[in-house]
């Protein structure tokens, strides 16, 4: 028998599959697993957060958010902060909210905005005080932030921020890198600030109920959004605020009650508007 040499066929020991396809498949499933894990942890923190007593939350965050304003401004703003705290207290009394303690801080910032920070802290910008005309409108904004606190939204946000931060930390794995630390801070802050639309709607509802209980009507509930929406205020840097929120028109519609149009609005005291710094 004669020997005839033959070349072995290709593809026995190797696969013809494109390496990029494999990469996409493997990386995709890895990322999906990681995201699933993050999602699961976030859901469980959202669920578990309500078992943290308010007193513990206050204890942890009480001294964290006291100096929003520049140190020199604290003395000047004392009167205004006192007024805001009194307003919140009267809303609390009207709404019979005894479980929480709130503290309002004024933030020197032109953009009209308000925030709910963990530990019962509420931040109100000087821009917001300048924008609003009536106490009812201001009470609505404060009531909205109270609503966030009642739903434990701020501490949920912190929980999410920490979880996301830990994952970013672990996945990117570089603790000493300043950029990463900045990113973690940003992410924590972003998740703190960005409540979901449902959370916003629920907080709106609580705010509306609170001012109804306090004033006996809901006129002024939509003042903030109407002002924000009016053309002369469009230039104000409120884009960030509006992005994560339900549309302003939608919120005006849900808050405005034409039955209350003839009701009286309580004007804001003059000292509240800080012309010199706004």
């Amino acid at each position, binding site marked *: 028998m004669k020997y005839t040499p033959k070349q072995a066929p290709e593809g026995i*020991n190797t*696969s013809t599959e494109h*390496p990029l396809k*494999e*990469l996409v498949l493997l990386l995709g499933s890895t990322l999906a697993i990681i995201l699933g894990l993050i999602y699961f942890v976030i859901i469980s923190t959202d669920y578990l957060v309500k078992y943290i007593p308010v007193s513990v939350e206050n204890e942890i965050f009480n001294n964290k958010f006291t100096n929003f304003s520049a140190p020199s401004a604290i003395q000047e703003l004392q009167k205004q902060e006192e007024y805001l705290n009194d307003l919140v207290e009267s809303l609390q009394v009207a709404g019979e909210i005894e479980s929480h303690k709130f503290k309002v801080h004024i933030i020197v910032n032109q953009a009209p905005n308000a925030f709910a920070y963990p530990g019962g802290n509420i931040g109100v910008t000087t821009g917001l005080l300048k924008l609003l005309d009536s106490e009812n409108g201001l009470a609505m904004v404060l009531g909205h932030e109270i609503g966030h606190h009642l739903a434990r939204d701020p501490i949920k946000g912190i929980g999410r921020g920490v979880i996301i931060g830990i994952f970013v930390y672990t996945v990117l794995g*570089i603790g000493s890198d300043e*950029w990463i630390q900045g990113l973690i801070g940003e992410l924590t802050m972003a998740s703190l600030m960005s409540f979901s639309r449902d959370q916003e709607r629920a907080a709106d509802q609580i705010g509306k109920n609170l001012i109804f209980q306090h004033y006996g009507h809901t006129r002024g509930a939509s003042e903030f959004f109407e002002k924000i929406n009016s053309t002369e205020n469009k230039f104000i840097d409120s884009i960030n605020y509006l992005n994560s929120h339900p549309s302003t028109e939608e919120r005006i519609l849900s808050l405005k009650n034409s039955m209350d149009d003839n009701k009286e609005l309580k004007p804001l005291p003059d000292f509240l508007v800080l012309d010199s710094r706004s």
Partner: protein
Amino acid sequence: MIELSIFLLLLVVGYIFGHWGEKKHFRSIIKRELEMLHVPVVTLKSYPPLTRDVDGVLVSGNVVVSIDHFKKFLASLRNLFGGRVTSYETLLDRARREAILRMKSSAIEKGAEVVINTRIETASISKNSAGNGNVGSVEVVAYGTALIPKSIYKEQN
């Protein structure tokens, strides 16, 4: 950030050059295998059908080939899920065939008619440091006994 971008850069460089180099290498392997087809390489310890007197000479071919970062990353992802590590399969296939080709070409140079008792061995280089993020490489040695007709062998020596 810097570390991340370096990693991505290594990945891209690894993919572009690794993929291109591998394709080129496979083409050259197939071409040379065809050219050297007339000399059989077998694992038999003896080769009966030779009619002439022959001398046996040791021939060997040796290849060291390194993985790139893309292959390494792909393999480490594969480690999570299990299955065929295709990125290493092609690498080792290339190394094996190249080692045999180098052995064969040295045998042909010596005028051999056949290479018997062929063995292939492999060793990994920098195995210990592979865990520290270094790129490891693998060595493949093919060796066998080239059977050279006495007349040709005498001429050479």
